[in-house]
């Protein structure tokens, strides 16, 4: 039987990852004018697969080795600029703003899913 925690776990992890990515994108936007700053980003798809256990290698047996990357920071990557600037800064505001708005929208989506699941649980508890 699945516990209530399992029921909410996936979207909770998604929310955490989205929040972390928002912070990283906020850092990029904050450093848009700093010379030599290199913009970074989080590989969300890769990270959420690890949370979910759906990676290229899945540990389905207790004897399997868990090959998932334990360090959550390892999947940060540097952004490749489309138009490199002379001062060595790789922040492109259009790209960062786009990613930021997309990420916050997806954060809201995850939040909505969580809310729906909680509402479902509540109605089950009340028996209405």
């Amino acid at each position: 039987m699945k516990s209530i925690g399992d029921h909410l776990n996936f979207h909770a992890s998604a929310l955490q990852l989205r929040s972390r990515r928002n912070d990283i994108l906020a850092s990029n936007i904050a450093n848009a004018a700093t010379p030599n700053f290199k913009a970074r980003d989080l590989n969300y798809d890769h990270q959420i697969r690890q949370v979910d256990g759906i990676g290229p290698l899945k540990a389905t047996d207790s004897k399997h080795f868990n090959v998932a990357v334990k360090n959550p920071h390892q999947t940060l990557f540097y952004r490749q600029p489309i138009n490199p600037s002379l001062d060595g800064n790789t922040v492109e505001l259009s790209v960062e703003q786009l990613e930021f708005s997309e990420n916050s929208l997806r954060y809201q989506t995850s939040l909505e899913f969580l809310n729906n699941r909680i509402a479902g649980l509540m109605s089950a508890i009340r028996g209405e």
Partner: protein
Amino acid sequence: MADINNVFDISGRAMAAQLVRLNTIASNLANAGNLASSEDEAYRSLKPVFETKYADEVRKNGIATAQAVDIVETNRLPEKLYLPDHPSADDNGFVYSAAVNIEEEYVEMMEASRQYQNNVEVITTLRTLMMRTISMGK
């Protein structure tokens, strides 16, 4: 320097840095037309030096903010004008105009205010998300 923990630290400090930049621009523009009686006394435009402040020393978590660590005087030469009637003219009748490029300052002002706005936008968005997260399940 205190730790950088959340978006209010990240964007808030970047906004402070942009404000320093806007203040130097205001000083430069205010002194743009000033005349001085020697080259050393003439006003030279001020520029802030920005630096990235990382949340952790090893730069692992990708969280960083900007800080204006220093304000430097540019080494541009002030313009030498021949105005013998001017009260602050030197013995040879020259006055020295402030070394400020007004167009450049305008462009920088626009960029600084735009980036300030961007940081405000980030804080507003994330604050809304936080508020919605707090009221989760209601």
